[in-house]
């Protein structure tokens, strides 16, 4: 059992109390972003430093600004261009000052320490051209949660202006890599989606791979080489308690939770060296065999309704994507382009499947519809692998290793393929998995 880090996650997950702020002016918004249009012009937005007794207000504004910038949907305006210096966030801003610098939306706010480590954070979002408040909320939480409050405010702004769910108040579990390439040290790690607050979950003594979040509990499933017996494990994030999933005669790998969190689907190595897919019910511990073929069947991923599973198989000669019932049985091949396809992941919206494609010596990240139509490649290069979906189904994270680079790095890309950004993580990182929106 590993007990490296527990407790601090629990405290950072403390509920953040939310209160709606009464509008200072009536809301009749003109500004919004239609993110379903083909080409999106990022919306110019001004995020002012939140008023605070110390530097915390500016730090919160900075986190919000970077979140909005990285989404590709917003163009935060440099603070040096601001004309009005907001000093009272309860007063109506001078909209003309913001219209002059083309700020279509304006964010103001304040953070106040209330004693006992308690923090009050308020923000208002303004439509500068309509001259109205679009939304306003205040939050009470522990001071150490200030970064989470910044993510929650970012989500509120994103949702109000795009009409879509946000994705900033989320975490990434991934494999942090260090040491020489022929003897890499791999540690499970968890961080905020923007690369902040990295914490390590394992010590690095054993190879660990492919962590995945539970959709319903503070738990991950991953593969660990502990004791020279590579197999699938569950790790409780709050207690650090670890157990292996089932007792199988061969290597188990490539685990993933079902959408209700009650099952883990994974590959089991067969005595002849092939691999088939099994699902294990975590309550009854019953195991169901889902594929039975003399091939490598792996990377299973459930549809969000839990009815189907997409996986990769080389049963036809090369790795291709197949869809079958969640109960197993006949599988239908869905990938037919040039090259091989691997690591399929069903979007949380259900409309797309993301994958790694290998073709012409290049590794790409792409998406296709669940029936295999509409394939689109989002990014191509020497080595891109392992996409994972943001909970709103609009962004993917994956890892990339450039030729001659020392190791892999994490990147995000949106569904247009035009907004690609490196996730700032120190050192090397691979196998990212995006959490659901935090509760």
């Amino acid at each position, binding site marked *: 059992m590993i007990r490296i880090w527990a407790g601090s996650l629990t405290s950072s997950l403390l509920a953040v109390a939310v209160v709606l702020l009464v509008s200072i002016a009536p809301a009749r918004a003109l500004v919004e972003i239609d993110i379903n249009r083909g080409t999106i012009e990022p919306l110019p937005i001004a995020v002012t430093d939140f008023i605070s007794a110390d530097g915390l207000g500016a730090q919160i504004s900075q986190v919000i600004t970077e979140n909005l910038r990285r989404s590709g949907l917003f163009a935060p305006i440099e603070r040096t261009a601001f004309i009005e210096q907001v000093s009272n966030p309860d007063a109506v801003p001078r909209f003309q000052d913001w219209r002059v610098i083309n700020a279509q939306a304006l964010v103001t706010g304040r953070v106040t320490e209330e004693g006992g480590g308690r923090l009050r954070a308020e923000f208002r979002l303004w439509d500068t051209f309509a001259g109205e408040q679009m939304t306003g909320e205040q939050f009470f939480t522990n001071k150490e949660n200030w970064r989470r409050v910044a993510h929650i405010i970012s989500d509120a702004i994103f949702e109000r202006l795009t009409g879509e769910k946000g994705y900033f108040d989320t975490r990434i579990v991934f494999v942090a890599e260090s040491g020489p390439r022929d003897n890499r040290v791999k540690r499970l790690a968890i961080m905020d989606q923007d690369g902040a607050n990295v914490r390590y979950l394992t010590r690095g003594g*054993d190879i660990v791979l492919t962590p995945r979040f539970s959709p319903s509990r503070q738990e991950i499933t991953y593969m660990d080489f502990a004791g020279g017996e590579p197999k699938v494990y569950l790790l409780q994030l709050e207690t650090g308690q670890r157990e292996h999933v089932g007792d199988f005669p061969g290597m188990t790998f490539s685990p993933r939770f079902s959408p209700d969190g009650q099952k883990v689907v994974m590959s089991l190595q067969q005595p002849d*060296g092939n691999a088939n897919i099994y699902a294990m019910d975590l309550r009854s511990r019953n195991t169901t065999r889902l594929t039975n073929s003399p091939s*490598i069947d792996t990377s299973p991923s459930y549809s969000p309704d839990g009815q189907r599973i997409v996986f*990769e198989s080389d049963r036809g000669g090369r*790795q291709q994507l197949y869809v079958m019932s969640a109960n197993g049985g006949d599988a239908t091949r869905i990938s037919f382009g040039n090259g091989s396809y691997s690591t399929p992941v069903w979007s949380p919206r259900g409309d797309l499947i993301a994958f790694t494609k290998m073709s012409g010596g290049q590794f790409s990240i792409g998406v296709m519809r669940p029936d295999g139509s509409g394939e689109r490649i989002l990014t191509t290069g020497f*080595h891109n692998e392992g996409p994972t979906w943001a909970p709103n189904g609009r962004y993917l994270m994956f890892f990339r290793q450039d030729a001659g680079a020392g190791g892999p790095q994490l990147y995000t890309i949106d569904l247009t393929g035009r907004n690609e950004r490196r996730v700032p993580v120190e050192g090397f990182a691979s196998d990212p998995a995006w959490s659901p929106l935090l509760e």
Partner: protein
Amino acid sequence: MGLNQIRPAGVLMAVVLTALAITGCANNRNLPNNPADLGLGAGAGATPGSQQDFTVNVGDRIFFDTDSSVVRSDAQVILARQAQWLNQYPNFQVTIEGHADERGTREYNLALGARRAAATKAFLVSRGVNGARIKTISYGKERPVATCDDISCWSQNRRAVTVLGGAGS
């Protein structure tokens, strides 16, 4: 767990020799399969039946084609020597480590390494080695021995290594 950790203590010499062989590989297009190419002489000084004897004189590893677990004819020669040696020294248990190059995806490469280890084991068993003496493990693409980003390295990483697990009682 590091690869060396599953070797028993007291075999430092063999570990050092393996490390030498690995260093040697990283710069060559084709991994040398005979002791002379390793610059170690003809294995002179290796006690027959020792780990050094196995690594240097027999050859502890074979190589595979891209995305293949077929035991090539050059590999069959080495595995035949391994089988003969293991039959001659029946007290050794072995672990066959299957590996893939880095030009594949992680999950598939774990399976591919397992397939290569299984094919290697099947060959040794077909040459009379008791299957109960042989464990297999796949490292997928996690433990390359050669770390450049072209085929000269990838071809060295698509391998199965027979690691002596120490003499049984």
